[in-house]
């Protein structure tokens, strides 16, 4: 009896550890080689100098970090934060009711609604964004339709509003899906109990439903915020490059300015902002 108790705890964790290793190793190897190594490379570039014709000269400098605090780059960073924050907020305001309603649908309709949410992902992102330029351009579909009823033409394209609209369109599904998962999981008996105890529909939502779905809200917000913040395709195609975001800035450092070290430093700044957000999200989710 006693020996059994002694041997089991020894052998079991070892077997588990081996199993974990076997199952994890492909993914782990992938991550280490294709994520950590490039990331380490990016970090190391931030302290070196730019080569005359691109590339990196391995001489130590802090200049890249000093440039980061140049008002020009700070304003681009703040602008990007603002655009991503507005997008996330609007996505939440639209996404929550949508997810809530889908969760109340009969099973058959639920599936259909979810497929409809995911449907845009079946077409390439660039093509969908490009289609917006056809819709919104001066002589485009929206303006020519408005002209038929005697309105317009309006300048719908190439401003910050269009950037937010484009980001919202692209990433709204990423808000709806985690919210749906959170709301769907909710035990309906909790709401019934709340109603039985005399709470109104709104009080139930505010005191029961909302607090319990906060993790979904946080996940969805993060899913929308992260790709919006670093986006460079939409500012270029829908914003007409007239206002740039941090993603454009980074892209330009590598593709036209040939300033890899500063591009790497900007990337580091972007990652730093996102890591802070992830920590906030994890902390808030634990409290919720």
């Amino acid at each position, binding site marked *: 009896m006693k020996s059994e108790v002694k041997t089991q705890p020894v052998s079991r964790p070892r077997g588990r550890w081996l199993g974990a290793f076997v199952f994890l190793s492909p993914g782990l190897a992938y991550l280490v080689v294709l994520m950590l190594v490039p990331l380490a490379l990016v970090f190391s570039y931030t302290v070196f100098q730019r080569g*005359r014709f691109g590339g990196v000269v391995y001489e130590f400098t802090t200049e890249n970090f000093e440039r980061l605090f140049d008002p*020009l780059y700070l304003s681009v960073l703040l602008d990007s934060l603002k655009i991503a924050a507005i997008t996330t907020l609007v996505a939440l305001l639209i996404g929550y009711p949508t997810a809530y309603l889908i969760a109340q649908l009969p099973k058959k309709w639920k599936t259909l609604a979810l497929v409809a949410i995911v449907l845009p992902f079946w077409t390439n992102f660039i093509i969908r964004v490009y289609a917006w330029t056809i819709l919104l351009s001066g002589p485009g579909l929206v303006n020519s339709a408005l002209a038929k009823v005697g309105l317009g033409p309006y300048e719908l394209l190439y401003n910050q509003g269009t950037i937010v609209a484009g980001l919202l369109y692209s990433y709204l599904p990423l808000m709806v899906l985690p919210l749906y998962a959170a709301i769907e999981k909710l035990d309906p008996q909790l709401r019934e109990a709340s109603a039985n105890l005399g709470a109104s529909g709104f009080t139930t939502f505010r005191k029961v439903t909302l607090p319990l779905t906060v993790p979904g809200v946080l996940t969805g917000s993060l899913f929308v915020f992260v790709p919006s913040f670093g986006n460079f395709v939409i500012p270029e195609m829908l914003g007409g*490059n007239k*206002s*740039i975001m941090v993603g454009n800035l980074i892209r*330009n450092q590598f593709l036209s*300015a040939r*300033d890899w070290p500063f591009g790497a430093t900007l990337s580091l700044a972007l990652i730093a902002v996102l890591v802070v957000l992830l920590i906030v999200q994890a902390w808030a989710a634990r409290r919720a």
Partner: protein
Amino acid sequence: MSRTRFTRRLPAAAAAAGLALAVAACGGGSSSSSADQAPAAADQLKPNADLSQQSLQITVWDGYTPKELPQKAMEKLKIKNVQIQLHDTNEVAMTKLTAPGDSGIDVAFVSGQYAQALNEQGLLEPIHHELIPNLANLYPEATQLSYDKGNKYSVPYTWGTTGICYRSDLVKSEPKSWNDLLKPPAWADKKVTMLATERWLALPALKSLGYSINTDKDEELEKAKELLMAQKPHLLRYDDTTFGDRLVSGEAVMAEAWDGWCPTTDPKGNIKFAVPKEGSDLWVDTMVIMKSSKNKEAAHALINYILSPEIHSWAAENINYKVPNKAAMEQVKIAKGSLLGTTPAELLNGEAAIDLGQASTKYTRLQQDVTAS
């Protein structure tokens, strides 16, 4: 074909910006060693070498030379074997050419500044003019290009410039000056696009102010910036890639454009191209022979063959770029609406961009100041 040109031109454009030269990035170490092995003096080449003992590896942009070129070169020149490799950008070509060890490439197609960079690294074989009699077919102007006067190490293949691409049916008057773009008249307000890539963003402003496109003077760049900032509210957008579509749809009426990208062959025939009177730039794509080649006689024979009117006119007719070959251009049937009618004198009016080294960061800054404002 237009797609090929599309993918090709942007990187070549970045080259002409003088940003150029991945050399330092890709092969600093290797290039210095090959410079040691390669004294400035040219190899002794035998004019009557047996080409059937030599094989060629060529690296070139996709669709940039006739498909049957290898076959024809093998038949006509009796070269043992001719293989084509493709690169989509100058940078990719440079990576291949500057990698440590023998790249195995004999002939490469790269833009002018890249040829200059390869030569500075000692990687190019000087051109043996006596082996390329067809050099006589080139326009005299094409032998005096600023990055390589006298075609010492490169032979020009195509050339072109930047100007204003416009809708002749939608403009009230034909654009003649960069100021038509920089200060658009009321009928063109918000119907104008500009190239956003650094050196080209600055080009119209610099030229309209009478400065060099290679300036590194802060006060000149400051004045150019003021002009560009004042222009910004009157722009439709900054556009390096879709200005052709914007013109076709009529959203834009004038666009700063690279000549090969201006859709002058649009079937409606109302899109035209003009080089403003203040002048513009000049880009050149060239052929070079690698120092490491062991088949230099065949390489010279091939370049000589490409410079024959029969082959060189193919480029003008099929990729719609001008070629610096007088004999070839005289053979070309100039398509209606095509740009090929521009004379070399008009082209040479253009200033060749040179690499600015550290000063190129000033153009980066200018671009960021203008676009982020």
